[in-house]
């Protein structure tokens, strides 16, 4: 059998063996892509914390954008201005205020399939939940959901035969995303509302407002970064718990374990397995010479299962007392939405297991992972119908 390629669906279905293998050569050169693969926890953290050497600027990822995405593809010190403006809107305190709405939304979604005794979890729950939260935050109508999903998927998973076709489709979709948010901005300028989009228009730091282009570049990133990641984490977590009924039973009986369980599932599953950087200046790292311009893959998933950092790293342990996982990255580009994601995940998993504590993967079926971000695109579940 040939080895699964990095980030392929086969890799994503069972990444731990490949992570273990990768850590044997902690700073490796991948000849196929001429990139550097970094896989030990300490090295990944050091690279995340050093944007002067490992830049997150535009060269790193091409996802159909015409300009650098804000704030991810801008490095400090310029990036700090954007984070100062955006961070307060995504602080834990702000996200706590959304919790009752998210809980109601979660229960509405569960209502839609609880009586059926089965569901395809990705389509029925994991996709619509974060997308609907995003629509509400941005002040977009629920009727725009199909369009936004099509735009997001056109970038993240373009249906194309070749790499060139894929890139062309991404660029075309990218143009539609800009047009979508341009239209929305015009509407909010005419008629301000109580939403993030309207707030962007008035946002300033030290008297310096966000420009129209900057608002578009932030919105573009939100659409791409804010949806798939929570979808993937929900799918990975539920797939894991479907296969580990004794862990699931404990969580159903002891819901007070959820805050730590969410962290442990984030660590063990690390739904964003890799983040990409570019070497900004020639350097030596982990005994290897790195050239300016080289692409660097920081294997967050390998870092999060590194036994030099975590005892029993391959096992899921809800009592893990020290869990400094990097599922949300680290350093200045720490995921802006981490507090929103954590709240959505905790509320979703709490309610799901309160209402449907006994589920399993439908007999004769298998979950199917995507490539890239670890979305479980097919997750058929069966469960007893509550009487």
């Amino acid at each position, binding site marked *: 059998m040939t080895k699964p390629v990095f980030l392929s669906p086969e890799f994503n279905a069972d990444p731990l063996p490949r992570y273990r293998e990768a850590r044997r050569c902690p700073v490796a050169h991948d000849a196929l892509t001429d990139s550097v693969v970094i896989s030990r926890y300490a090295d990944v953290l050091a690279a995340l*914390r050093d944007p002067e050497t490992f830049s997150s600027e535009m060269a790193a990822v091409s996802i159909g954008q015409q300009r650098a995405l804000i704030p991810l593809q801008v490095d400090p010190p310029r990036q700090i201005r954007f984070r100062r403006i955006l961070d307060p809107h995504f*602080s834990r305190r702000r996200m706590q205020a959304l919790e009752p709405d998210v809980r109601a939304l979660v229960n509405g979604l569960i209502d839609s399939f609880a009586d059926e005794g089965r569901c395809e979890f990705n389509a029925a729950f994991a996709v619509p939940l974060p997308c609907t939260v995003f629509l509400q935050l941005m002040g977009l109508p629920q009727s725009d959901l199909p369009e936004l999903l099509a735009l997001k998927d056109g970038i993240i998973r373009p249906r194309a035969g070749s790499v060139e076709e894929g890139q062309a489709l991404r660029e075309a979709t990218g143009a539609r995303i800009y047009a979508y948010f341009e239209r929305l901005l015009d509407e909010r300028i005419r008629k301000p509302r109580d939403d993030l989009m309207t707030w962007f228009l008035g946002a300033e730091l030290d008297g310096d407002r966000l420009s129209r282009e900057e608002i578009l570049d932030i919105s573009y990133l939100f659409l791409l970064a804010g949806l798939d990641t929570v979808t993937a984490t929900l799918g990975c977590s539920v797939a894991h718990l479907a296969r580990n009924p004794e862990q699931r039973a404990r969580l159903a009986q002891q819901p007070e374990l959820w*805050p730590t369980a969410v962290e442990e599932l984030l660590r063990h599953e690390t739904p964003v397995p890799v983040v990409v950087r570019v070497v900004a200046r020639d350097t030596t790292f982990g005994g290897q010479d790195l050239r300016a311009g080289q692409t660097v893959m920081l294997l967050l998933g390998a870092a999060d299962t590194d036994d030099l950092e975590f005892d029993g790293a391959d096992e899921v342990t809800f*009592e893990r007392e020290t*869990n*400094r996982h990097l599922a*949300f990255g*680290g350093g200045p580009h720490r995921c802006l939405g981490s*507090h929103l994601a954590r709240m959505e995940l905790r509320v979703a998993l709490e309610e799901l297991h309160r209402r449907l504590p006994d589920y399993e993967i439908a007999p004769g079926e298998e979950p199917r992972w995507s490539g890239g971000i670890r979305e479980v695109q097919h997750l058929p579940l069966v469960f007893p119908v509550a009487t």
Partner: protein
Amino acid sequence: MERWNPRGSASAARVPGRDVRVRVDGERCVGHGRCYEIAEEVFGEDDRGHCVVQLAEVPPELQAKARQGAANCPERAIEIDD
């Protein structure tokens, strides 16, 4: 062993011993928020969600939680002097 409860109350019994000093390195903190999720009596958040030490001198009954909060910081931004 008592199970660690991340949302636990501060109702721990009085424990003998001296206070310890807690410091956060504002240059290292990037707002993961693990410290104030775990030990909200000791750590708070500013408007960006970065850590602000609420209780610089931590009494013995809160020291276990303070240490737990510090130990879970991915940036290693919190120091506790013994």
